[in-house]
């Protein structure tokens, strides 16, 4: 098999000492970033991105994607020990993880969470290995209309599957598109929406927006609740790990179910958060111990972690194969690829075979390295949370400022970061989702180009979007997804009227 040979070649690329070193550094940085409040996957990657511009793209992407794996693992530590979800998708992990820690079973909970993450991520990587090349090959046939239809599908699924207020998701997407439109228009060469400002000519760099929205605003939200974190102690020794692993076999059905849910939700964007809740909800419904959920049931840790990580990893599939990221971090990684001159999408699999397969191989190794490192070093990272926040907060903010500055050596960008920090704070408090904004900001220009090129080809007729079977299918699918949310709301409302207790999966809008 051709792909298998490429994968083995990829392992040879990823297994150099050089790249393994980057992997380890990336995972450790990622865990730190995941554990620290105010630094999550997206802006951890965003801050480090400018420092990797001089590196070889394969090593750089291995470093950055390892940060992503590390951040995924790190989120579980704070959820379980401190009842503070490090990322939105670890919220469901706190439901049973923290009660377990309270009962003194923190080590079991952590081992279960890490292992579940690993299994979830692994199933995502397997999916990427076998499906991404097929998708990419298929996508080679795409014209501008088809690409716009895929973009449409992405945005519609965000709106339809999102858990937030739908009008706010749309508003957030629109803000992203409009921010992307500011500056030089790539087709006509005109300046748009700059109002004579030279600083705005460059447009809004999405990295600045990410650092502001996810970094600064997160700090502001964290300090609201005071500057001290109270947490549980945890030490993981080999016996606990082995005992927990032996017990995990009983839950194979839960793991499998969550992995499948996660993979499905991950490929359709905006999925990781929804996937973790769905995984939890399904496990609760089907488990024999469903009643114990929320009181420290190990299955309640396994289900959302597996689903979230399967989704988080699968989110890289559309990023690689179509150039459409499925999550905020994937969007930042995509931005990195563009900076290194690699155009993600179907052609990447043809032109940059070595890079793609090196990256995929590094996903296997990075997750394995992540699991080992995280199991070995939990006490260390839990200790980071005990450093008083009055020391940590300024350091994080300084690093954010440096990150914002280094993108294009502009102090104006630091002000922008600050403004977006305040915007992000207000938006988060008002439940405006931020991920759609980032996604639209990254994809805005390309979605617009595809739209305009499609219309140019058809002479302005919208008929181009149902001109052939493929594009029609995509558009119809997009509209179905768009209506999925309101429809399921209506069904839930009708059922809720008949029954007093609503299942969490449906109640979760």
């Amino acid at each position: 098999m051709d792909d298998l040979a490429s994968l083995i070649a990829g392992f040879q690329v990823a297994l150099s000492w050089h790249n393994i070193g980057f992997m380890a550094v990336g995972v450790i940085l990622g865990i730190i970033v995941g554990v620290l409040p105010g630094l999550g996957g997206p802006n951890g990657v965003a801050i480090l991105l400018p420092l990797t511009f001089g590196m070889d793209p394969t090593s750089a992407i291995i470093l950055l994607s390892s940060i992503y794996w590390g951040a995924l693992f790190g989120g579980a530590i704070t959820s379980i020990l401190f009842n503070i979800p490090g990322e939105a998708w670890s919220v469901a992990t706190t439901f049973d993880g923290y009660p377990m820690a309270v009962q003194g079973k923190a080590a079991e909970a952590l081992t279960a969470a890490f292992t579940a993450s690993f299994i979830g991520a692994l199933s995502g990587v397997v999916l990427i290995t076998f499906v991404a090349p097929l998708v990419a090959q298929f996508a080679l046939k795409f014209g501008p209309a088809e690409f716009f239809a895929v973009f449409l599908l992405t945005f519609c699924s965000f709106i339809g599957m999102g858990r937030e207020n739908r009008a706010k998701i749309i508003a957030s997407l629109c803000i992203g598109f409009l921010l992307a439109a500011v500056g030089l228009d790539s087709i006509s060469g005109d300046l748009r929406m700059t109002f004579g400002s030279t600083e705005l000519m460059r447009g809004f760099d999405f990295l600045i927006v990410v650092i502001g929205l996810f970094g600064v605003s997160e700090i502001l939200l964290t300090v609201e609740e005071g500057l001290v974190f109270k947490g549980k102690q945890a030490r993981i020794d080999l016996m606990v790990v082995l005992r927990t692993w032996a017990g995990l076999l009983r839950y194979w059905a839960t793991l499998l179910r969550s992995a499948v849910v996660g993979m499905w939700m991950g490929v359709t964007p905006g999925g990781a958060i929804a996937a973790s809740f769905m995984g939890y909800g399904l496990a609760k419904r089907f488990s024999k111990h469903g009643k114990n959920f929320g009181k420290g049931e190990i299955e309640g840790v396994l289900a959302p972690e597996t689903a979230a990580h399967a989704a988080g990893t699968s989110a890289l599939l559309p990023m690689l194969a179509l150039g459409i990221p499925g999550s905020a971090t994937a969007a930042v990684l995509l931005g990195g690829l563009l900076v290194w001159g690699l155009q993600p999408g179907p052609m990447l699999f043809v032109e940059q075979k070595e890079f793609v397969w090196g990256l995929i191989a590094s996903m296997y190794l990075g997750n394995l390295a992540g699991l080992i490192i995280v199991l070995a070093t939990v006490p260390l990272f839990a200790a980071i949370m005990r450093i008083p926040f009055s020391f940590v907060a300024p350091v994080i903010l300084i690093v954010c400022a440096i990150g914002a500055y280094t993108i294009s050596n502009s102090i104006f960008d630091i002000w922008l970061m600050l403004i977006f920090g305040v915007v992000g704070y207000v938006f988060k408090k008002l439940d405006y989702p931020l991920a759609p904004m980032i996604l639209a900001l990254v994809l805005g220009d390309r979605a617009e180009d595809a739209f305009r090129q499609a219309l140019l080809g058809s002479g302005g007729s919208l008929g181009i979007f149902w001109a052939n079977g493929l594009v029609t299918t995509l558009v119809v699918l997009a509209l179905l997804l768009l209506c999925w949310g309101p429809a399921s709301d209506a069904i839930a409302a009708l059922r809720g009227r008949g029954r007093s207790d609503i299942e969490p999966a449906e109640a979760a809008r």
Partner: protein
Amino acid sequence: MSSPSETETPERGISRRPVEIATALLLIGLVGIVLYDSHGRGAGWDGGPQNGFFPARVGWIFLAASLFILWQSCRRPDGVFVTYEQLRQVIRVLGPLILFVALIQPLGIYVASAVFIIAFMAVVGTSRWWSIGLTALLVPVVCFWVFELQFRVPLPKGPLEAALGY
């Protein structure tokens, strides 16, 4: 800024509805700017879509969404957006942060960081003076070592660095 006394119940704060409405109005204002700019430059068809074509269409969708949000925010039961205690905490971070960003231009990022750390930790007021001093000295030095010497990323420098010969 009204500063409440410590004895008040933590529920007191800025209520959510005015903030919701203000945000929605701000968004509508933003749409206004976008539509003005796009239609001003041409959002129609001139041998192809003009450069305001796409932003204008996004703008109209945006307008519909923000009007809907405005309508929704008037109907929702009101809640607390942020309590005064929380707001005080946020201001204690945001104040020094703004000072920090403002000082980067004249003083360079390293000196500004030191000032920021001192200001922040003094405002928060939970640490001893020597630990504040040590942090304020070490963090910029480590940053300098990492970014200036190791990664060779030029960061904004001020008179102090110039005096030291960098």
